[in-house]
Protein backbone atom coordinates (compact mmCIF):
# COMPACT_ATOMS: atom_id res chain seq x y z
CA UNK A 1 0.00 0.00 0.00
CA UNK A 2 1.42 3.32 -1.03
CA UNK A 3 -1.17 5.58 0.52
CA UNK A 4 1.57 7.49 2.35
CA UNK A 5 3.39 8.24 -0.86
CA UNK A 6 1.01 8.81 -3.73
CA UNK A 7 3.81 9.61 -6.17
CA UNK A 8 5.03 6.02 -6.11
CA UNK A 9 2.62 4.17 -8.33
CA UNK A 10 4.25 0.81 -8.81
CA UNK A 11 7.16 -1.33 -7.83
CA UNK A 12 8.83 -0.54 -11.13
CA UNK A 13 8.95 3.12 -10.17
CA UNK A 14 10.77 2.48 -6.94
CA UNK A 15 14.54 2.50 -6.95
CA UNK A 16 15.86 -1.05 -6.58
CA UNK A 17 17.90 -0.11 -3.47
CA UNK A 18 14.81 0.67 -1.44
CA UNK A 19 13.31 -2.72 -2.16
CA UNK A 20 16.08 -5.05 -1.06
CA UNK A 21 16.47 -3.89 2.55
CA UNK A 22 12.71 -4.07 3.01
CA UNK A 23 12.79 -7.82 2.49
CA UNK A 24 15.88 -8.39 4.55
CA UNK A 25 14.37 -6.62 7.52
CA UNK A 26 11.61 -9.17 7.59
CA UNK A 27 12.71 -12.24 9.49
CA UNK A 28 12.54 -15.31 7.28
CA UNK A 29 10.09 -17.77 8.72
CA UNK A 30 12.09 -20.71 7.52
CA UNK A 31 15.80 -21.09 7.24
CA UNK A 32 16.93 -21.55 3.66
CA UNK A 33 19.60 -24.18 3.27
CA UNK A 34 22.02 -23.03 0.62
CA UNK A 35 22.00 -25.13 -2.52
CA UNK A 36 18.97 -27.06 -1.38
CA UNK A 37 15.86 -26.80 -3.52
CA UNK A 38 12.67 -28.61 -2.58
CA UNK A 39 10.42 -30.19 -5.18
CA UNK A 40 11.61 -31.42 -8.56
CA UNK A 41 14.45 -29.24 -9.84
CA UNK A 42 15.87 -31.89 -12.15
CA UNK A 43 14.67 -33.50 -15.36
CA UNK A 44 15.78 -36.28 -17.70
CA UNK A 45 17.49 -35.16 -20.89
CA UNK A 46 17.16 -31.45 -20.13
CA UNK A 47 17.64 -28.54 -22.54
CA UNK A 48 19.56 -26.62 -19.90
CA UNK A 49 21.63 -28.36 -17.27
CA UNK A 50 22.63 -25.78 -14.66
CA UNK A 51 24.76 -26.77 -11.71
CA UNK A 52 26.02 -24.81 -8.71
CA UNK A 53 25.45 -21.51 -10.45
CA UNK A 54 26.62 -18.42 -8.60
CA UNK A 55 26.49 -14.86 -9.82
CA UNK A 56 28.42 -12.00 -8.27
CA UNK A 57 27.96 -8.29 -8.75
CA UNK A 58 31.34 -7.16 -7.52
CA UNK A 59 31.55 -8.59 -4.01
CA UNK A 60 27.85 -9.22 -3.66
CA UNK A 61 26.62 -12.72 -4.33
CA UNK A 62 23.31 -12.32 -6.16
CA UNK A 63 22.78 -16.00 -7.01
CA UNK A 64 23.70 -18.53 -4.39
CA UNK A 65 24.56 -22.01 -5.57
CA UNK A 66 21.57 -22.83 -7.72
CA UNK A 67 21.17 -26.12 -9.57
CA UNK A 68 18.31 -26.60 -12.00
CA UNK A 69 17.35 -28.48 -15.15
CA UNK A 70 15.06 -26.96 -17.75
CA UNK A 71 13.31 -29.54 -19.89
CA UNK A 72 12.87 -29.53 -23.65
CA UNK A 73 9.74 -27.73 -24.84
CA UNK A 74 9.00 -26.92 -21.26
CA UNK A 75 7.53 -23.64 -20.11
CA UNK A 76 9.11 -22.82 -16.78
CA UNK A 77 8.18 -19.73 -14.81
CA UNK A 78 10.56 -17.96 -12.43
CA UNK A 79 8.78 -16.13 -9.64
CA UNK A 80 9.91 -14.35 -6.50
CA UNK A 81 10.07 -10.95 -4.82
CA UNK A 82 11.97 -8.10 -6.49
CA UNK A 83 15.68 -8.49 -6.07
CA UNK A 84 15.48 -12.26 -5.53
CA UNK A 85 17.73 -12.95 -8.50
CA UNK A 86 15.25 -14.42 -10.96
CA UNK A 87 16.08 -11.97 -13.76
CA UNK A 88 19.80 -12.25 -13.01
CA UNK A 89 19.55 -16.01 -13.28
CA UNK A 90 17.53 -15.77 -16.49
CA UNK A 91 20.14 -13.51 -18.04
CA UNK A 92 22.83 -16.12 -17.40
CA UNK A 93 21.10 -18.41 -19.85
CA UNK A 94 22.14 -16.35 -22.88
CA UNK A 95 24.94 -14.37 -21.25
CA UNK A 96 23.10 -11.08 -21.18
CA UNK A 97 24.98 -10.47 -17.95
CA UNK A 98 28.20 -10.14 -19.97
CA UNK A 99 27.35 -6.52 -20.64
CA UNK A 100 27.64 -5.72 -16.92
CA UNK A 101 31.32 -5.25 -16.11
CA UNK A 102 31.20 -6.16 -12.44
CA UNK A 103 29.12 -9.28 -13.03
CA UNK A 104 30.81 -12.69 -12.71
CA UNK A 105 29.16 -16.07 -13.24
CA UNK A 106 30.41 -19.30 -11.69
CA UNK A 107 29.23 -22.88 -12.00
CA UNK A 108 28.35 -25.13 -14.87
CA UNK A 109 25.73 -23.94 -17.37
CA UNK A 110 25.09 -26.33 -20.23
CA UNK A 111 22.81 -25.81 -23.22
CA UNK A 112 22.44 -29.32 -24.58
CA UNK A 113 26.09 -30.42 -24.79
CA UNK A 114 27.51 -26.92 -24.98
CA UNK A 115 29.05 -24.99 -22.15
CA UNK A 116 27.36 -21.57 -22.26
CA UNK A 117 30.30 -19.84 -20.56
CA UNK A 118 33.04 -21.60 -22.53
CA UNK A 119 35.75 -19.04 -23.29
CA UNK A 120 35.45 -19.72 -27.02
CA UNK A 121 31.68 -19.54 -27.10
CA UNK A 122 30.35 -17.25 -29.84
CA UNK A 123 27.90 -15.15 -27.88
CA UNK A 124 26.11 -13.89 -30.98
CA UNK A 125 25.43 -17.45 -32.07
CA UNK A 126 24.38 -18.37 -28.52
CA UNK A 127 21.85 -15.55 -28.47
CA UNK A 128 20.46 -16.67 -31.79
CA UNK A 129 19.80 -20.06 -30.19
CA UNK A 130 18.54 -18.51 -26.97
CA UNK A 131 16.38 -15.53 -27.86
CA UNK A 132 15.05 -12.97 -25.45
CA UNK A 133 11.98 -10.80 -25.02
CA UNK A 134 12.11 -7.94 -22.54
CA UNK A 135 9.73 -6.24 -20.17
CA UNK A 136 9.22 -3.16 -22.28
CA UNK A 137 8.65 -3.73 -25.98
CA UNK A 138 11.82 -2.49 -27.67
CA UNK A 139 11.27 -2.51 -31.43
CA UNK A 140 13.98 -0.90 -33.54
CA UNK A 141 12.93 2.48 -34.98
CA UNK A 142 12.55 0.84 -38.35
CA UNK A 143 9.71 -0.63 -40.35
CA UNK A 144 7.79 -3.67 -39.13
CA UNK A 145 9.38 -5.71 -41.91
CA UNK A 146 12.92 -4.62 -41.07
CA UNK A 147 12.45 -5.38 -37.39
CA UNK A 148 11.71 -9.01 -38.12
CA UNK A 149 14.23 -9.24 -40.99
CA UNK A 150 17.05 -7.78 -38.90
CA UNK A 151 18.13 -11.03 -37.23
CA UNK A 152 17.95 -13.27 -40.30
CA UNK A 153 19.98 -10.66 -42.22
CA UNK A 154 22.85 -10.39 -39.73
CA UNK A 155 22.92 -14.17 -39.27
CA UNK A 156 22.81 -14.69 -43.03
CA UNK A 157 19.78 -16.95 -42.83
CA UNK A 158 18.30 -15.75 -46.10
CA UNK A 159 20.13 -15.31 -49.39
CA UNK A 160 17.27 -14.00 -51.43
CA UNK A 161 14.55 -11.45 -50.86
CA UNK A 162 11.90 -14.14 -51.31
CA UNK A 163 13.47 -16.26 -48.53
CA UNK A 164 13.52 -13.26 -46.27
CA UNK A 165 9.88 -12.48 -47.08
CA UNK A 166 8.99 -16.00 -46.14
CA UNK A 167 10.79 -15.82 -42.78
CA UNK A 168 9.17 -12.48 -41.99
CA UNK A 169 5.72 -13.77 -42.84
CA UNK A 170 6.02 -17.03 -40.94
CA UNK A 171 7.50 -15.30 -37.87
CA UNK A 172 4.71 -12.73 -37.86
CA UNK A 173 2.17 -15.52 -38.26
CA UNK A 174 3.63 -17.48 -35.36
CA UNK A 175 3.50 -14.34 -33.27
CA UNK A 176 -0.16 -13.94 -34.18
CA UNK A 177 0.51 -10.58 -35.74
CA UNK A 178 0.40 -11.24 -39.50
CA UNK A 179 -3.26 -10.45 -40.08
CA UNK A 180 -2.96 -7.18 -38.21
CA UNK A 181 0.11 -5.88 -40.03
CA UNK A 182 0.32 -7.59 -43.42
CA UNK A 183 -0.94 -4.47 -45.22
CA UNK A 184 1.48 -2.11 -43.52
CA UNK A 185 4.78 -3.93 -43.28
CA UNK A 186 6.59 -0.74 -44.28
CA UNK A 187 5.00 1.28 -41.50
CA UNK A 188 7.26 2.20 -38.62
CA UNK A 189 7.13 -0.28 -35.72
CA UNK A 190 7.07 2.38 -33.06
CA UNK A 191 3.61 3.44 -34.25
CA UNK A 192 2.09 0.12 -33.19
CA UNK A 193 0.21 -0.45 -29.93
CA UNK A 194 2.17 -1.78 -26.94
CA UNK A 195 0.75 -5.27 -27.29
CA UNK A 196 1.53 -5.34 -30.99
CA UNK A 197 5.05 -4.09 -30.35
CA UNK A 198 5.63 -6.86 -27.82
CA UNK A 199 4.36 -9.49 -30.24
CA UNK A 200 6.62 -7.93 -32.88
CA UNK A 201 9.56 -8.42 -30.51
CA UNK A 202 8.50 -12.03 -30.13
CA UNK A 203 8.33 -12.37 -33.92
CA UNK A 204 11.80 -10.82 -34.12
CA UNK A 205 13.08 -13.39 -31.60
CA UNK A 206 11.44 -16.26 -33.49
CA UNK A 207 12.80 -15.10 -36.87
CA UNK A 208 16.28 -16.50 -36.20
CA UNK A 209 14.83 -19.95 -35.37
CA UNK A 210 15.90 -20.07 -31.73
CA UNK A 211 15.69 -23.18 -29.58
CA UNK A 212 14.87 -21.29 -26.41
CA UNK A 213 13.01 -18.07 -25.73
CA UNK A 214 13.68 -16.18 -22.52
CA UNK A 215 10.99 -13.75 -21.46
CA UNK A 216 11.65 -11.17 -18.79
CA UNK A 217 8.23 -9.99 -17.60
CA UNK A 218 6.92 -9.86 -21.16
CA UNK A 219 3.44 -8.69 -20.20
CA UNK A 220 4.02 -6.24 -17.38
CA UNK A 221 3.63 -3.26 -19.71
CA UNK A 222 0.62 -4.68 -21.53
CA UNK A 223 -3.13 -4.43 -21.01
CA UNK A 224 -5.17 -7.57 -20.17
CA UNK A 225 -6.15 -8.26 -23.78
CA UNK A 226 -2.63 -7.94 -25.12
CA UNK A 227 -1.49 -10.06 -22.16
CA UNK A 228 -4.00 -12.77 -23.06
CA UNK A 229 -2.72 -12.76 -26.63
CA UNK A 230 0.89 -13.12 -25.53
CA UNK A 231 -0.07 -15.93 -23.14
CA UNK A 232 -1.93 -17.68 -25.92
CA UNK A 233 1.19 -17.32 -28.01
CA UNK A 234 3.34 -18.83 -25.25
CA UNK A 235 1.09 -21.89 -25.20
CA UNK A 236 1.42 -22.28 -28.98
CA UNK A 237 5.15 -21.66 -29.02
CA UNK A 238 5.80 -24.24 -26.33
CA UNK A 239 5.30 -26.90 -28.98
CA UNK A 240 8.43 -25.74 -30.77
CA UNK A 241 10.52 -23.93 -28.18
CA UNK A 242 11.70 -24.15 -24.63
CA UNK A 243 10.38 -21.09 -22.83
CA UNK A 244 11.66 -19.54 -19.64
CA UNK A 245 9.51 -16.73 -18.33
CA UNK A 246 10.13 -14.36 -15.44
CA UNK A 247 6.89 -12.90 -14.22
CA UNK A 248 5.55 -10.83 -11.37
CA UNK A 249 2.05 -12.02 -12.10
CA UNK A 250 1.46 -15.22 -10.18
CA UNK A 251 -1.72 -15.86 -12.10
CA UNK A 252 0.30 -15.66 -15.28
CA UNK A 253 2.80 -18.20 -14.00
CA UNK A 254 -0.12 -20.42 -12.98
CA UNK A 255 -1.70 -20.12 -16.41
CA UNK A 256 1.23 -20.56 -18.77
CA UNK A 257 3.89 -22.72 -17.16
CA UNK A 258 4.47 -26.41 -16.63
CA UNK A 259 6.83 -25.90 -13.74
CA UNK A 260 7.32 -22.95 -11.44
CA UNK A 261 10.56 -22.01 -9.71
CA UNK A 262 10.46 -19.82 -6.63
CA UNK A 263 13.51 -17.63 -5.95
CA UNK A 264 14.20 -15.93 -2.64
CA UNK A 265 17.19 -13.71 -1.80
CA UNK A 266 19.33 -15.40 -4.42
CA UNK A 267 18.32 -18.93 -3.48
CA UNK A 268 16.21 -21.27 -5.52
CA UNK A 269 13.81 -22.37 -2.80
CA UNK A 270 11.35 -24.58 -4.62
CA UNK A 271 10.72 -25.96 -8.09
CA UNK A 272 7.56 -27.94 -8.62
CA UNK A 273 4.78 -28.69 -11.03
CA UNK A 274 2.90 -25.41 -11.38
CA UNK A 275 -0.38 -27.03 -10.32
CA UNK A 276 1.22 -28.13 -7.09
CA UNK A 277 2.91 -24.80 -6.39
CA UNK A 278 -0.37 -22.93 -6.55
CA UNK A 279 -2.49 -25.40 -4.58
CA UNK A 280 -0.13 -26.85 -2.00
CA UNK A 281 3.45 -25.65 -2.23
CA UNK A 282 6.04 -27.57 -0.26
CA UNK A 283 8.07 -24.71 1.12
CA UNK A 284 6.70 -22.23 3.62
CA UNK A 285 8.41 -19.31 1.86
CA UNK A 286 6.79 -20.23 -1.46
CA UNK A 287 3.45 -20.37 0.31
CA UNK A 288 3.98 -16.98 1.94
CA UNK A 289 4.92 -15.38 -1.36
CA UNK A 290 2.17 -16.76 -3.57
CA UNK A 291 -0.53 -16.09 -0.99
CA UNK A 292 0.54 -12.46 -0.75
CA UNK A 293 2.10 -12.50 2.69
CA UNK A 294 5.28 -10.69 1.67
CA UNK A 295 6.96 -9.71 -1.57
Amino acid sequence: MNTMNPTVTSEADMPEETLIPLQEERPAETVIEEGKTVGIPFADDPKFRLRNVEVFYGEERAIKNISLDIGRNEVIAFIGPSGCGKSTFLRCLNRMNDSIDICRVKGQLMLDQDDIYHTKRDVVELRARVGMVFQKPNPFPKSIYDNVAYGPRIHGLANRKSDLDEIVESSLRKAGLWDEVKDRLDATATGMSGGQQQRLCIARAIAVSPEVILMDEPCSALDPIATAKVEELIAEMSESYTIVIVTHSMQQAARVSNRTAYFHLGHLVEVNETDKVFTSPEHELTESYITGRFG
Partner: protein
Amino acid sequence: MPNKKDDVYGDHISHKFNDELTELKTQFLNMGGLVESQVERAVQALVDGDGYVAENVRAGDKQVDKMEVELDEEATLIIARRQPTARDLRLVIAVIKMVADLERVGDEAKKIAKMAIKLSEEGQAPRGYVEIRHIASHVLSMLHDALDAFARLDSEQALRVMKEDKRVDEEYQAAARTLLTFMMEDTRNISRCMSVMWVLRALERVGDHACNIAENVIFMVKGEDVRHTPVDEAEKVVGR
Protein backbone atom coordinates in the same frame (compact mmCIF):
# COMPACT_ATOMS: atom_id res chain seq x y z
CA MET B 1 5.72 -23.15 9.83
CA PRO B 2 3.70 -19.98 10.39
CA ASN B 3 4.45 -17.95 13.48
CA LYS B 4 1.08 -18.43 15.11
CA LYS B 5 -1.23 -21.23 14.21
CA ASP B 6 -4.42 -19.20 14.66
CA ASP B 7 -3.03 -16.52 12.44
CA VAL B 8 -2.32 -18.55 9.32
CA TYR B 9 -4.96 -16.62 7.38
CA GLY B 10 -4.21 -13.30 9.01
CA ASP B 11 -0.78 -12.13 7.87
CA HIS B 12 -1.35 -10.99 4.31
CA ILE B 13 0.05 -7.70 3.10
CA SER B 14 -3.54 -6.75 2.32
CA HIS B 15 -5.43 -6.29 5.59
CA LYS B 16 -8.68 -6.30 3.70
CA PHE B 17 -7.88 -9.80 2.46
CA ASN B 18 -7.18 -10.89 6.06
CA ASP B 19 -10.54 -9.47 7.08
CA GLU B 20 -12.34 -11.25 4.27
CA LEU B 21 -10.88 -14.64 5.15
CA THR B 22 -11.51 -14.12 8.86
CA GLU B 23 -15.07 -13.13 8.10
CA LEU B 24 -15.54 -16.25 5.98
CA LYS B 25 -14.25 -18.46 8.79
CA THR B 26 -16.38 -16.73 11.40
CA GLN B 27 -19.52 -16.89 9.29
CA PHE B 28 -18.91 -20.56 8.63
CA LEU B 29 -18.53 -21.28 12.33
CA ASN B 30 -21.68 -19.29 13.08
CA MET B 31 -23.56 -21.39 10.58
CA GLY B 32 -22.03 -24.51 12.14
CA GLY B 33 -23.21 -23.41 15.57
CA LEU B 34 -26.72 -22.78 14.32
CA VAL B 35 -26.88 -26.17 12.58
CA GLU B 36 -25.60 -27.94 15.69
CA SER B 37 -28.33 -26.34 17.76
CA GLN B 38 -30.92 -27.22 15.11
CA VAL B 39 -30.06 -30.93 15.40
CA GLU B 40 -29.86 -30.77 19.16
CA ARG B 41 -33.24 -29.07 19.51
CA ALA B 42 -34.90 -31.35 16.96
CA VAL B 43 -33.83 -34.42 18.90
CA GLN B 44 -34.89 -32.83 22.18
CA ALA B 45 -38.29 -31.96 20.70
CA LEU B 46 -38.69 -35.53 19.56
CA VAL B 47 -37.74 -37.08 22.88
CA ASP B 48 -39.87 -34.61 24.86
CA GLY B 49 -42.75 -34.80 22.41
CA ASP B 50 -42.59 -31.02 22.23
CA GLY B 51 -44.33 -29.86 19.04
CA TYR B 52 -43.64 -26.19 19.72
CA VAL B 53 -39.86 -26.59 19.75
CA ALA B 54 -40.11 -28.83 16.68
CA GLU B 55 -41.97 -26.07 14.82
CA ASN B 56 -39.23 -23.65 15.83
CA VAL B 57 -36.60 -25.95 14.35
CA ARG B 58 -38.52 -26.17 11.09
CA ALA B 59 -38.71 -22.40 10.91
CA GLY B 60 -35.03 -22.11 11.81
CA ASP B 61 -34.01 -23.98 8.68
CA LYS B 62 -34.74 -20.85 6.65
CA GLN B 63 -31.94 -19.10 8.50
CA VAL B 64 -29.59 -22.01 7.72
CA ASP B 65 -30.44 -21.75 4.03
CA LYS B 66 -29.89 -18.01 4.09
CA MET B 67 -26.46 -18.43 5.65
CA GLU B 68 -25.55 -21.01 3.00
CA VAL B 69 -26.31 -18.53 0.22
CA GLU B 70 -24.41 -15.73 1.97
CA LEU B 71 -21.34 -17.85 2.58
CA ASP B 72 -21.26 -19.05 -1.01
CA GLU B 73 -21.50 -15.47 -2.17
CA GLU B 74 -18.71 -14.36 0.13
CA ALA B 75 -16.48 -17.21 -1.09
CA THR B 76 -17.23 -16.38 -4.72
CA LEU B 77 -16.33 -12.73 -4.14
CA ILE B 78 -13.04 -13.68 -2.50
CA ILE B 79 -12.12 -15.79 -5.52
CA ALA B 80 -13.09 -12.99 -7.89
CA ARG B 81 -11.26 -10.29 -5.96
CA ARG B 82 -8.19 -12.05 -4.63
CA GLN B 83 -7.50 -15.10 -6.78
CA PRO B 84 -6.42 -16.93 -3.64
CA THR B 85 -3.70 -19.56 -3.84
CA ALA B 86 -2.33 -22.38 -1.72
CA ARG B 87 -3.77 -22.50 1.80
CA ASP B 88 -6.02 -19.50 1.18
CA LEU B 89 -7.44 -21.21 -1.88
CA ARG B 90 -7.90 -24.46 0.04
CA LEU B 91 -9.77 -22.60 2.78
CA VAL B 92 -12.17 -21.00 0.33
CA ILE B 93 -12.77 -24.21 -1.63
CA ALA B 94 -13.22 -26.25 1.55
CA VAL B 95 -15.69 -23.72 2.95
CA ILE B 96 -17.75 -23.87 -0.23
CA LYS B 97 -17.98 -27.65 0.09
CA MET B 98 -18.48 -27.75 3.84
CA VAL B 99 -21.27 -25.19 3.64
CA ALA B 100 -23.17 -27.65 1.46
CA ASP B 101 -22.67 -30.31 4.15
CA LEU B 102 -23.90 -27.99 6.87
CA GLU B 103 -26.96 -27.12 4.84
CA ARG B 104 -27.72 -30.83 4.45
CA VAL B 105 -27.32 -31.33 8.19
CA GLY B 106 -29.84 -28.52 8.59
CA ASP B 107 -32.22 -30.44 6.32
CA GLU B 108 -31.78 -33.56 8.42
CA ALA B 109 -32.65 -31.53 11.53
CA LYS B 110 -35.78 -30.34 9.77
CA LYS B 111 -36.73 -33.93 8.93
CA ILE B 112 -36.28 -34.94 12.54
CA ALA B 113 -38.42 -32.00 13.63
CA LYS B 114 -41.16 -33.09 11.24
CA MET B 115 -41.06 -36.58 12.71
CA ALA B 116 -41.17 -35.09 16.20
CA ILE B 117 -44.37 -33.25 15.29
CA LYS B 118 -45.90 -36.38 13.77
CA LEU B 119 -44.96 -38.59 16.71
CA SER B 120 -46.09 -36.07 19.30
CA GLU B 121 -49.46 -35.86 17.59
CA GLU B 122 -49.78 -39.65 17.61
CA GLY B 123 -48.96 -39.55 21.32
CA GLN B 124 -47.84 -43.12 21.84
CA ALA B 125 -45.33 -44.52 24.31
CA PRO B 126 -41.75 -44.01 23.20
CA ARG B 127 -39.91 -46.92 21.63
CA GLY B 128 -36.36 -46.72 20.23
CA TYR B 129 -35.75 -43.33 21.87
CA VAL B 130 -32.81 -44.72 23.83
CA GLU B 131 -31.11 -45.50 20.54
CA ILE B 132 -31.99 -42.09 19.14
CA ARG B 133 -30.56 -40.34 22.17
CA HIS B 134 -27.42 -42.39 21.98
CA ILE B 135 -26.72 -41.92 18.28
CA ALA B 136 -27.75 -38.26 18.46
CA SER B 137 -25.23 -37.52 21.16
CA HIS B 138 -22.58 -39.39 19.21
CA VAL B 139 -23.12 -37.57 15.89
CA LEU B 140 -23.53 -34.23 17.62
CA SER B 141 -20.15 -34.63 19.25
CA MET B 142 -18.71 -35.60 15.86
CA LEU B 143 -20.17 -32.47 14.30
CA HIS B 144 -18.91 -30.36 17.14
CA ASP B 145 -15.42 -31.87 16.93
CA ALA B 146 -15.32 -31.43 13.14
CA LEU B 147 -16.19 -27.73 13.48
CA ASP B 148 -13.68 -27.40 16.29
CA ALA B 149 -11.03 -29.07 14.12
CA PHE B 150 -11.85 -26.47 11.44
CA ALA B 151 -11.58 -23.60 13.89
CA ARG B 152 -8.23 -24.80 15.23
CA LEU B 153 -6.94 -26.30 11.93
CA ASP B 154 -6.41 -29.53 13.81
CA SER B 155 -6.03 -32.34 11.28
CA GLU B 156 -5.54 -34.95 14.00
CA GLN B 157 -8.87 -34.16 15.53
CA ALA B 158 -10.42 -34.27 12.04
CA LEU B 159 -8.96 -37.74 11.64
CA ARG B 160 -10.55 -38.84 14.90
CA VAL B 161 -13.92 -37.65 13.58
CA MET B 162 -13.41 -39.69 10.43
CA LYS B 163 -12.73 -42.76 12.53
CA GLU B 164 -15.91 -42.24 14.55
CA ASP B 165 -18.06 -42.55 11.48
CA LYS B 166 -17.63 -46.31 11.33
CA ARG B 167 -18.86 -46.65 14.91
CA VAL B 168 -21.94 -44.57 14.14
CA ASP B 169 -22.70 -46.85 11.21
CA GLU B 170 -22.45 -49.86 13.51
CA GLU B 171 -24.70 -48.24 16.09
CA TYR B 172 -27.20 -47.42 13.38
CA GLN B 173 -27.24 -51.04 12.20
CA ALA B 174 -27.73 -52.29 15.75
CA ALA B 175 -30.56 -49.83 16.39
CA ALA B 176 -32.25 -50.84 13.13
CA ARG B 177 -32.16 -54.45 14.24
CA THR B 178 -33.72 -53.57 17.58
CA LEU B 179 -36.50 -51.69 15.82
CA LEU B 180 -37.09 -54.64 13.50
CA THR B 181 -37.61 -56.82 16.56
CA PHE B 182 -40.22 -54.39 17.89
CA MET B 183 -41.98 -54.45 14.55
CA MET B 184 -42.03 -58.23 14.47
CA GLU B 185 -43.31 -58.45 18.03
CA ASP B 186 -46.34 -56.37 17.24
CA THR B 187 -47.28 -55.21 13.78
CA ARG B 188 -49.12 -52.22 15.23
CA ASN B 189 -45.64 -50.85 16.05
CA ILE B 190 -44.61 -50.73 12.41
CA SER B 191 -45.71 -47.21 11.53
CA ARG B 192 -44.15 -45.71 14.68
CA CYS B 193 -40.99 -47.73 14.35
CA MET B 194 -40.62 -46.63 10.75
CA SER B 195 -40.76 -43.01 11.89
CA VAL B 196 -38.10 -43.69 14.48
CA MET B 197 -36.09 -45.45 11.81
CA TRP B 198 -36.24 -42.33 9.62
CA VAL B 199 -34.92 -40.28 12.50
CA LEU B 200 -32.07 -42.73 13.06
CA ARG B 201 -31.32 -42.59 9.36
CA ALA B 202 -31.25 -38.77 9.47
CA LEU B 203 -28.85 -38.87 12.43
CA GLU B 204 -26.61 -41.35 10.67
CA ARG B 205 -26.47 -38.91 7.73
CA VAL B 206 -25.45 -36.12 10.11
CA GLY B 207 -22.49 -38.31 11.05
CA ASP B 208 -21.60 -38.67 7.36
CA HIS B 209 -21.67 -34.92 6.87
CA ALA B 210 -19.51 -34.37 9.95
CA CYS B 211 -17.11 -36.86 8.42
CA ASN B 212 -17.10 -34.91 5.13
CA ILE B 213 -16.33 -31.72 7.02
CA ALA B 214 -13.45 -33.49 8.76
CA GLU B 215 -12.08 -34.64 5.38
CA ASN B 216 -12.19 -31.07 4.14
CA VAL B 217 -10.33 -29.89 7.22
CA ILE B 218 -7.56 -32.37 6.44
CA PHE B 219 -7.50 -31.04 2.88
CA MET B 220 -7.21 -27.48 4.17
CA VAL B 221 -4.39 -28.28 6.54
CA LYS B 222 -2.45 -30.90 4.60
CA GLY B 223 -3.32 -30.06 1.01
CA GLU B 224 -4.30 -33.62 0.23
CA ASP B 225 -7.68 -34.94 -0.68
CA VAL B 226 -8.56 -37.85 1.62
CA ARG B 227 -12.09 -38.40 0.36
CA HIS B 228 -12.81 -41.92 -0.80
CA THR B 229 -9.60 -43.17 0.73
CA PRO B 230 -9.33 -45.72 3.55
CA VAL B 231 -8.83 -44.29 7.02
CA ASP B 232 -5.28 -45.66 7.28
CA GLU B 233 -4.37 -43.69 4.14
CA ALA B 234 -5.80 -40.56 5.72
CA GLU B 235 -3.81 -41.40 8.83
CA LYS B 236 -0.58 -41.34 6.78
CA VAL B 237 -1.49 -37.96 5.29
CA VAL B 238 -2.17 -36.48 8.71
CA GLY B 239 1.03 -37.98 10.12
CA ARG B 240 3.15 -36.21 7.48
